[in-house]
């Protein structure tokens, strides 16, 4: 299992999703998308692998996703059909702090 650091860019093995690591825990991280482990950008996607039906909520570009513990945060830079999970637990969308209009 790879060690992530902020700035690491990863792509899904089973869909078009790409993310950039914003915050990572110190140890090994098993980040999956669509149920399959994500790999470094540039690595070959596992051909023919399908999205796990339990991990098919999709990712949205521009959204930040965080682990329940809050120790892993990624920014989606390319959307896809798979959804993100770490150690089997789905990452949640981290909404930007709502700010009122300044006008």
């Amino acid at each position, binding site marked *: 299992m790879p060690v992530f650091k902020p700035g690491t860019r990863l792509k899904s093995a089973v869909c078009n999703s790409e993310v950039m690591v914003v915050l990572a825990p110190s140890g090994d991280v098993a980040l999956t998308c669509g149920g399959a482990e994500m790999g470094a950008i540039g690595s070959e996607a596992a051909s023919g692998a399908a999205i796990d039906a339990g991990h098919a909520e999709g990712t949205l570009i521009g959204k930040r996703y965080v682990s329940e513990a809050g120790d892993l945060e990624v920014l989606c*830079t390319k959307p896809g059909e798979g959804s993100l999970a770490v150690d089997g637990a789905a990452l949640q969308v981290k909404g930007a702090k709502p700010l009122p209009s300044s006008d």
Partner: protein
Amino acid sequence: MIPSRAAADGSCSLAFADFAGQLASGIDREGWSSASGCPYLWVDLREATPPSAETLASVARALAAIACPTLALVPQGSGASPGALAACFDVAHSEVKVLEASAAGCRRSPQAALALVQRLRGGEAESLEAALIGESLAYSMLQSGAEFGAWREGRPQPSAPAASGRSPLRIERSGARLDLVLDRPEKRNAFSAALRDALSEALEVVAQDPSIEVVALRGEGPAFCAGGDLDEFGSFPDPASAHAIRSTRNVARKMAACAERIEVRVHGACVGAGIELPAFAARLSARADAFFELPEVAMGLIPGAGGTVSLPRRIGRQRTAWLALSGERIDVDTAMAWGLVDEVWS
């Protein structure tokens, strides 16, 4: 007291020789001020002989500190580069009618007009970041002013930004290209807080992902962007908080930070933020029906989406001041001639 021909609107109108003479005599300049009831200073340069370098420098220093917009009437044919003397003024033009259009804005909103020209005088020497902060400070100051208050009185109560399920921005990624489409056609893509948030989020991706080589920004519907969302105008919590909000989430700053990768295609109305933000992009093209307008001064405000920073960098501070003070609309031909847009398409 200023011994000069005072116009009915309280403004002061002088030939350059008299103006220079008054400066040299150490006259009290407090009369040339919107606070003294003088909304602008009008100086006729048509008969001016080119001043010495020393005089020019002292005139430039004096003009930078005058507390109202300074308008210069320059000789016919002096065209786009009216010389070092004219360049010291806030606006310079050879046609009385054109210069008068900016005077009208000064009469209507003297405090906003003053803040505008002061930002433009100072902005040229500042970093982009410092200029954006200065714009926001001035904008917030005016949000508490009587001129904006009077504008608001004539309007329905502002509504807090509506939470709608639909995103006001379409984001499409294909390889190295990111398409951003303003998608509130029913509101002519008015720049709401929700649109601000969506654009800010999308531009964050651009900032973080160097594999995005081209960002193409355009608008859905009849207009690229009709400006700030007037339904939300006046809904800010208080002026100091509004400044803190603009400092926290600022689309202009994010546009400027990745300007080299951004191409904007505009059409129809490009009003307020609808031209202020595109003007940051490295490449800006306009459909033949596009028009451009800065309406804020008539509302007692100044451009607040980065326009006092982005427009001077494209068209210079005097044309920016004229656009903002006059509130007049310019078409693509003028925009092209001025360098406000880089290309016109049909």
